[in-house]
């Protein structure tokens, strides 16, 4: 097996910092498991040193079997870097918005260019990519990571150690997050932050591996009983460990304790601070002991005897001390606004959350009232959690399985049966950018090719944007008589004669035709085309023994039109499509604090955008502060669109209804990312791709029960059966937007449902179809 390489700006056993420690531990432990491990790092000795100085010699160093390659760092302009840094830090945290870069006016590029960089390391990566099994880049912020990762992206795993800070919004960071092959997270909280920042496109390539904590082998009895003159077993104290400065929020804790003591002057509960940092706390407040940096043993002793550990920092991707406290059976309290730690505490049930000074001070009082039994209860729950996420064996197991270091090679795909089809082409009436049928055809083609078939897509109408994906159908040119053919049928096309005559094995996938009656009044020409599509279906039926609908709803229609035993082949809706940058302008525009209500679908009468606008008008009248985003193609001159505009004008909704039109994926991505509710009034959906897409974006779906909608949603979303009472609908929509409990229930059901539309789920059904074609 080829070696796994860690890429990190600084490397050494005694370097401080979560990422540095993680790299050291994981590298050595993987090595112990027999994995070949190398470390690619710089000659700079640590974060705290000058990044343009080579303190250590370049070259290869063998640390007990661990191969460390050091590369010289580049010269850099520290002033430019500091300017860029200051520029970004000047943005108040509350103004940071996912998808909009706070490093404006080229300061982002400057920040990366004048960061810690090493051209020689980059050259090495480029030349030796093939020699490695995988690269693990850790952490996310430095030049060698931001510039190095794209060079070996297809083999690159990123362990970002992501914090909710201004750097996480840097465009170059998004670039590596999107580009890398996979992502390791330290905690579920960090994973959630990444999803909030970058959307569902990275959902399936991430894995929470956890971060190990070295459980002290020492017996409690051997720990010192006295630290800095305090007899620990006689004191009742809350402990705060770690670097003490403003970014770690230490002063909040000190102030809260101060408040607590003012209210309860008789209290004997103390606050002990320990850790490096310039500032000294506590001199002025009785009961606070600032011990400064303490020895490792003293730290262990302090942890083992405390009432609880308080971690007020808002910027943690993972807090080792929390796990350490839990492993000593001690409960913890963390800042509620820090996703990583708060999620861990909530999931474990091993402590409490607090945010304001008031809450923290009340927590002091609450703890003082608790007896040891109650405290132990919380501590034990924490210990349980810590053993799962923080025990090194479990962590290393996860690394090995994700990196494919242990498996006996990937499972072989079902290969083609002998003496059967070698070629399966697809035929679609139209092929356009952003079109659901076209996307499905692409996914099927990839699946077919991965199974070893020769497969192309032929189409009658080819969108110029998609010329690289499909071929123009020219009287069957390129489709041999013995080739298998999958025909996607939707509205009337000139392909009917050809597919009927095609002598080879064939199957039909039906994508539904909108009932012409629904649109006849407003769009008579379209109605005619739809009618043609429906009548063609009857003609096709006797010639296709194998058929499938995109939903049960569609299959039933096939049956009604004379097809025998049609199967269901759902449309594949995978989140990877959204691993693209969201349109930054749209992102900035839509994140203005309004509730964004979204509908995606062509502007046509049967999708009932008119009902949606009316219901939205009611919602806006009742609650205000909202926006309706209508994504979907329309022609300015179309009468239905004109009537919608008229409606918008008559309700005075001009500023609140956004007709986005037919948009590129990056803009649609932004619309989904910024929306809080997907609301459909549509009376006809043959499948409803946007319903599933909303599920990937964790947007609750609120939809009128019609056609294939209930089938597609299944347990996801919330349906309504009448649309005459707009006030009631508006009230329900309000709950979906603001009742957290309801929202969470809906979203969690949707997270389950969306998995049914992954390529893996579709693949089996495609196999059935192919078997049918083979006879």
């Amino acid at each position, binding site marked *: 097996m080829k070696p796994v390489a860690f890429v990190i700006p600084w490397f050494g056993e005694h370097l401080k910092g979560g990422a540095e420690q993680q790299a050291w531990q994981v590298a050595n432990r993987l090595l112990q498991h027999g994995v070949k491990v190398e470390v690619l790092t710089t000659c700079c000795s640590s974060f705290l040193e000058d990044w343009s100085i080579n303190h250590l010699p370049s070259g290869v160093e063998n640390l007990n079997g661990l191969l460390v390659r050091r590369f010289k760092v*580049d010269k850099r302009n520290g002033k430019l870097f500091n300017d860029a840094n200051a520029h970004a830090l000047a943005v108040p945290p509350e103004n940071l918005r996912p998808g909009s870069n706070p490093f404006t006016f*080229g300061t982002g*590029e*400057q920040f*990366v*260019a004048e960061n810690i*960089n090493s*051209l020689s390391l980059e050259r090495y990566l480029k030349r030796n990519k093939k020699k490695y099994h995988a690269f693990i880049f850790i952490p996310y912020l430095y030049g060698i990571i931001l*510039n190095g990762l794209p060079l070996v992206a297809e083999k690159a795993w990123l362990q970002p150690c992501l914090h909710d800070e201004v750097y996480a919004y840097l465009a170059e960071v998004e670039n590596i997050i999107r580009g890398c092959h996979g992502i390791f997270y330290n905690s579920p909280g960090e994973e959630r932050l990444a999803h909030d920042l970058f959307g569902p496109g990275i959902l399936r390539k991430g894995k929470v591996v956890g971060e190990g904590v070295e459980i002290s082998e020492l017996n409690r009895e051997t720990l010192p009983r006295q630290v800095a003159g305090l007899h620990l077993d006689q004191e009742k104290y809350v402990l705060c460990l770690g670097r003490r400065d403003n970014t770690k929020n230490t002063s909040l804790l000190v102030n809260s304790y101060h408040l607590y003591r003012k209210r309860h002057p008789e209290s004997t509960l103390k606050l002990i601070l320990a850790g490096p940092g310039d500032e000294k706390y506590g001199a002025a407040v009785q009961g606070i002991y600032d011990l400064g940096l303490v020895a490792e043993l003293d730290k262990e002793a302090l942890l083992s005897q405390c009432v609880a550990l308080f971690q007020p920092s808002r910027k943690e991707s993972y807090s080792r001390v929390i796990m350490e406290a839990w492993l000593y059976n001690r409960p913890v309290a963390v800042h509620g606004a820090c996703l990583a730690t708060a999620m861990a505490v909530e999931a474990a049930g091993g402590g409490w959350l607090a945010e304001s000074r008031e809450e923290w001070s009340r927590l002091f009082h609450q703890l003082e009232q608790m007896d040891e039994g109650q405290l132990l209860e919380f501590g034990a729950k924490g210990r349980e959690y810590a053993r799962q996420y923080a025990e090194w064996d479990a962590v290393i197991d996860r690394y090995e399985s994700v990196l494919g270091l242990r498996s006996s090679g990937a499972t072989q795909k079902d290969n083609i049966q002998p003496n059967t089809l070698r070629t399966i082409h697809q035929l679609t009436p139209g092929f356009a950018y952003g079109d659901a049928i076209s996307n499905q055809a692409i996914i099927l083609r990839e699946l077919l090719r991965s199974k070893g078939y020769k497969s192309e897509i032929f189409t009658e109408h080819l969108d110029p944007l998609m010329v690289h994906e499909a071929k123009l159908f020219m009287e069957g040119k390129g489709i041999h008589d013995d080739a298998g053919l999958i025909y996607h049928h939707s509205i009337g096309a000139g392909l009917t004669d050809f597919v009927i005559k095609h002598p080879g094995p064939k199957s039909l996938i039906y994508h539904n035709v909108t009932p012409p009656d629904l649109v006849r009044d407003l769009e008579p020409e379209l109605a005619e085309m739809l009618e043609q599509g429906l009548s063609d279906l009857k003609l096709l039926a006797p010639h296709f023994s194998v058929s499938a609908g995109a939903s049960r709803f569609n299959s039933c229609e096939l049956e009604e039109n004379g097809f025998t035993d049609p199967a269901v082949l759902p449309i594949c809706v995978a989140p990877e499509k959204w691993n693209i940058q969201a349109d930054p*302008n749209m992102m900035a*525009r839509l994140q203005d604090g309004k509730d964004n209500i979204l509908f995606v679908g062509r502007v046509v009468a049967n999708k009932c955008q008119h009902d949606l606008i009316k219901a939205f*008008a009611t919602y*806006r*009248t*009742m*609650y*205000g502060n909202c926006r309706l985003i209508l994504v979907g193609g329309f022609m300015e001159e179309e009468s239905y669109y004109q009537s919608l505009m008229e409606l918008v*004008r*008559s*309700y*005075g909704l*001009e*500023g609140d209804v956004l007709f986005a039109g037919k948009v590129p994926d990056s803009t649609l991505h932004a619309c989904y990312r910024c929306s809080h509710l997907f609301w459909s009034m549509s009376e006809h959906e043959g499948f409803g791709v946007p319903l599933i897409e909303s599920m990937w974006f964790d947007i609750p779906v609120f939809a009128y*029960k019609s056609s294939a909608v*209930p089938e597609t*949603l*299944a*347990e*996801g*979303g*919330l*349906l*309504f*059966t*009448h649309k005459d*009472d707009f*006030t*009631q609908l508006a*009230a*329900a929509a*309000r*709950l979906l937007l603001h*009742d957290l409990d*309801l929202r969470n*229930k*809906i979203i*969690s*059901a949707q997270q389950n449902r969306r998995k049914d539309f992954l390529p893996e789920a579709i693949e089996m059904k495609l196999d059935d179809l192919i078997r049918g074609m083979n006879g």
Partner: protein
Amino acid sequence: MLETKNSEIDLADLLEKVAIELKMQQKKQGRGQKGVFREDLPINDPFTWSQLKETMKVAELNVNAGAEVTSMLHYRGIVRKIARLLGKVTVFLGRVITIPQRNFNSSILHSLRITLDGIRDMNRTTARLEREMEHIKEKSQLVDYLKTGLITQERRVSILLEELRRQVNGAESGQETLVQELSGPNILDPLYLAFENQFRGTREEIIDRLMEYLPLIREARAGAEDREILDIGCGRGEWLEIMNDEGLVAKGLDINHVLVQDCRDKGFKVEENDALSYLRSLPDNSLGAITSFHLIEHLEFDTRVALFDESVRVLKSGGIAIFETPNPRNLLVGSCNFWSDPTHLRPLYPETHQFLMEYRGFCKVELLFLHPHEDDQRLPEEEAPELAFRLNELLSCARDYAIIGYKV
């Protein structure tokens, strides 16, 4: 009305929540919380300002296209230096195109901004004007109402005053009316006939001129059995003759006994009476048209006004009134020809009478200028065209004019 297959969600519970939510909203509404329920006033602003702003922003960002080299920070080392150099050379060479292009961009952008500001102001003004229009409409309805009332009152007052005067003057002037006084004693009637024959023009000439009014009469659908035409001061009956020939129902009125007899001899229906007395004897809404050629210049001002008032009263809806009189705009007519008739009181200024008729309740009141001098009477324009033109304007323009009004 809600449905879900999500087993975690208790539908009954959810429906109750929705009901509570609705009740809370209604309470808020009841308390009149401002800002929660906004007034849904339709606004007629054809511009989506936010979209405009967005696109303007894009234009602003790109207005300096081609002015600078990007910092090429994705390259480093020597490659970056070369890239920046190449970039600079390209930008330098491109200036031939980019400088005028940038000038064009910024001037277009600037004019767009000005235009947008202008449109915004205009939109505001339009909105304000629309509001004011509404006010004015309301007021004008009120004025119409008052006007009708006023006319009725004035008519009543003038009748009362006349009655009073008659009683004060006693028995000797009991029979007299104002019109009679104006037209002189009956004894002069033959004289006036002779005068007419001498000065008014030949019967054929007059018929020719009067034919011009026929389309107006037809348009007003006057002359039907129930829409009789009354010609006040019918004189020699030229107009009555036309009406007769055209098959229109018409009646004449004159106080000149001789002329009345003359007309009756020709077979026309003619009353011998003065205008006001006769009109007052008629019921409301009884005539299709009232015509009067060269009469009103014989009347005193208050009589003229009374004549207009009575005409409005007796005309049917849509009925037409035509009053022709000499045109004082024509210098010859105003200074000289007008006075050829010793019974003329004074020339009548056209717009004043247009105003009068309008003010007394006619609508669509128009002036029709008629009968200019024939070409051979005009000054030749060859020698001094400008002078000739201006003099012709003064001396040879329309000799008569008609005030035409309709009853609503």
